C-alpha cells in the first residue's frame, strides 16, 4: 500500500518539552517530554503507547504545534516534509504556523467528542475550522465537505444537526472528518477512541484508517490501548515517564518486546483461553517533576542493575527497524 515508506514526513530530534510553572515564587518543572527522537514515514500510522501521564499527549501537542504556556519546548527540533518543502516547526513565526495547521498538520484532540461547539450546527464547525484553509467559494466548499463525508460513509445531513443530536461515535467520526477534510499531510490523533465502546471504536478506527488511505496522510496515533495499536499501527513507539523506551514495527514489538516495560505492557493483555490471572507491574510511574536518576524505569524494573540507577540508557538499534533504551537488553545482546 505504501509508495515510499522510508522518506520521513516527520522527524523529531532530541525534543524536550517541559511544563514550567512559577506559583508564588516557587518554580516547578515537569519534564513531560525528555529527549525524544523519532520519525514518521509517509503513509504510515505510527502508534504511541504508554500508561497515563507518561508524556504522550504532551509529545503530540508539541508535534502538532499546539502548545500553550506553561508548556515550553526547550530543546530539539520538529521537522516536517510536505512534498519537497522542509519545515522546521519551531523556526516558524505565528503566521506561517497558522497556514500549516489544519491544512498540512491536523490534530484530533483528546476528548475530541467535545471539539464541536454544542450551540452550533456541525456545518458551522466545518466552516469555522476548515473554510479559510481551503480557499474556495462557499458552494464549492460545501460540495467538497459533502463529498468528503460521503467517502467516510457519513450522511451529509449530519451537517445540519446539533452535536447533542448525534451519538458519541458519530461525533467522533465527524471530528475525524473535520480533521481530514483539508487533506492534511500529517494527522496527530490523541486518543480519539477512548470514550467509546469496542464496537463503535472499531468503526471509528476503520474510518480513521480509510481517511488516512484516502488522503495519503501519515498518522501519529496515541492511545494506551495496546489492542488498538495491534490493529492499527504500522510502527509502535513505547513511552515511559517522558522518554521513548522502545520503537519498532508493531509485529516486532508485540513478538519480541525488548524493553522490560514493553514486555509487561504486552503481557498484561488478555488472550482467549487464558486461565490464569494477569500479573500486574507493581508501583506507579514516577512524578515527572522529580524523576528518578538514571533509567526512569529502574524503581519498578525486575531486571534493574547498578548502572540503571546511575546512567541514562541511550536508544540503541537491535534490528533494522527495532531500537530500545535498556542496559539489560544491551548486556544480553552484547
Amino acid at each position: 500500500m505504501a509508495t515510499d515508506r522510508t522518506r520521513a514526513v516527520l522527524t523529531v530530534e532530541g525534543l524536550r518539552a517541559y511544563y514550567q510553572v512559577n506559583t508564588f515564587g516557587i518554580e516547578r518543572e515537569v519534564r513531560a517530554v525528555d529527549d525524544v527522537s523519532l520519525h514518521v514515514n509517509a503513509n504510515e500510522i505510527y502508534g504511541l503507547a504508554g500508561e497515563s501521564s507518561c508524556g504522550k499527549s504532551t509529545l503530540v501537542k508539541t508535534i502538532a504545534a499546539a502548545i500553550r504556556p506553561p508548556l515550553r519546548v526547550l530543546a530539539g527540533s520538529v521537522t516536517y516534509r510536505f512534498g519537497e518543502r522542509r519545515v522546521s516547526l519551531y523556526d516558524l513565526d505565528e503566521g506561517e504556523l497558522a497556514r500549516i495547521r489544519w491544512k498540512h498538520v491536523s490534530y484530533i484532540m483528546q476528548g475530541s467528542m467535545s471539539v464541536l461547539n454544542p450551540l452550533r450546527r456541525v456545518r458551522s464547525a466545518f466552516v469555522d475550522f476548515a473554510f479559510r484553509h481551503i480557499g474556495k467559494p462557499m458552494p464549492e466548499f460545501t460540495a467538497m465537505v459533502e463529498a468528503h463525508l460521503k467517502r467516510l460513509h457519513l450522511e451529509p445531513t449530519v451537517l445540519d444537526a446539533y452535536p447533542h443530536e448525534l451519538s458519541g461515535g458519530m461525533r467522533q467520526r465527524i471530528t475525524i472528518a473535520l480533521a481530514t477534510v483539508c487533506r492534511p499531510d500529517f494527522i496527530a490523533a490523541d486518543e480519539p477512541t477512548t470514550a467509546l465502546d469496542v464496537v463503535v471504536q472499531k468503526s471509528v478506527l476503520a474510518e480513521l484508517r480509510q481517511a488516512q488511505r484516502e488522503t495519503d496522510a501519515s498518522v501519529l496515533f496515541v492511545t494506551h490501548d495496546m489492542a488498538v495499536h495491534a490493529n492499527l499501527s504500522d510502527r509502535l513507539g513505547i513511552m515511559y515517564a517522558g522518554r521513548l523506551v522502545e520503537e519498532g514495527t508493531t509485529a516486532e514489538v508485540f513478538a519480541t518486546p525488548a524493553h522490560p516495560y514493553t514486555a509487561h505492557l504486552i503481557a498484561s493483555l488478555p488472550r482467549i483461553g487464558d486461565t490464569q490471572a494477569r500479573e500486574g507491574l507493581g508501583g506507579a510511574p514516577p512524578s515527572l517533576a522529580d524523576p528518578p536518576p538514571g533509567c526512569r524505569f529502574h524503581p519498578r524494573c525486575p531486571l534493574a542493575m547498578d548502572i540503571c540507577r546511575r546512567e541514562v540508557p541511550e536508544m540503541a538499534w537491535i534490528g533494522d527497524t527495532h531500537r530500545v533504551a535498556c542496559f539489560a537488553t544491551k548486556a544480553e545482546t552484547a
Partner: protein
Amino acid sequence: MLKILRDLLRYNREFAAGVALLGFVILVAAASFFSPYPAADSFVVPPDMPPSWPHVLGTNSRGQDVFWQLSFAIRNTLLFGFSVAILSRVISLVVGLVAGYAGGMVDRVLMSINDSFIVIPLFPILVLFYFVMRERMSWAWLALAMAALGWAYDARLIRSVALSLRTREFTQTSIFSGMSMRQILVEEHLPYVLPIVFSTTMNNINWSIGLEVTLSVLGFTNVDTPTIGMMIYWANQHTAMVAGIWWWIAFPVALVVMTFIGLFLLAVSMNEYIDPRSRLARMGV
C-alpha cells in the same frame, strides 16, 4: 424562534403573564404617537378633572390629559431603560469575554476596573453628575452615564462563563485551526453567553428605570422631558395628593409597577428557559 415563543407561552405561565403586562405597557407607549396634544404643552384641557370621558385618566393641575402624558412618559422611560441596557450590555460583553478569554494581565487590569465599578456607590455619583451638568443635563447624557456605571456585575458574570469556555476542546481546536481571537469570541463564545445576557438585560432595564424614576422624582434630571419620574415630580410640585388629584400619581405609579413586574417575570422565565432541566420538567417531558 416562533416555536420557542409558542412553547414558552404555553408551558410557562410567568412568561405569558410577563408578555401580557409588557405588551400592555408597550401599547400605552405606542399610543403617544396618536396624541392630540404635544407632550410639552400645558393648559390644553381643563385642569384637575377626575377620570371621565373624554379624559379617561383625568387631567392634571397643569391642564394636561394624564393618559396622553402617561403614554409619552412611559415611552421615554422604556426607551431610556432599553438604551441603558443595550449600551451597558455591549460594554459588559466586551469586557467579560475579553477578560475571560485573554486571561493573565489583561484579565487582571480589566477586572480591577470592573471591581472598582462594582463597589462605587452609584446614586451619589449620579446626583453629582446632575450638579456638574445642570442645564446641559439631558435624557441621553443620563443614559450614557448609567450605562457606563451599570455594566460591571454582568461583565463579571460573563467572564466567569468565558473562563470555562476557554478551556473547552472546541476553543482549543478553534485556536489550532487558526481562528483569530475576535472570531472565537464572536462566533464560538457569544452564543454561549447570550441567554445569560438576555436575562440580565431585563434586570438591567428594571434597575435603570428604577434609578431614573428616583432621580426624576427628586428633580435631579432634566425636568422638561416627560418620563414617569417626571410626572410624579410635577405631581409632587403641585401637591397633587394633598389637593386630592390622586389620578395624577396613581396611574404613573401603577404603570411603572406593571413594567417592573412584566420585566421581572420575563427575566425569571428566561432564566428557567436557559436551564434545560427546569424547562423540561415544566413541559412534563
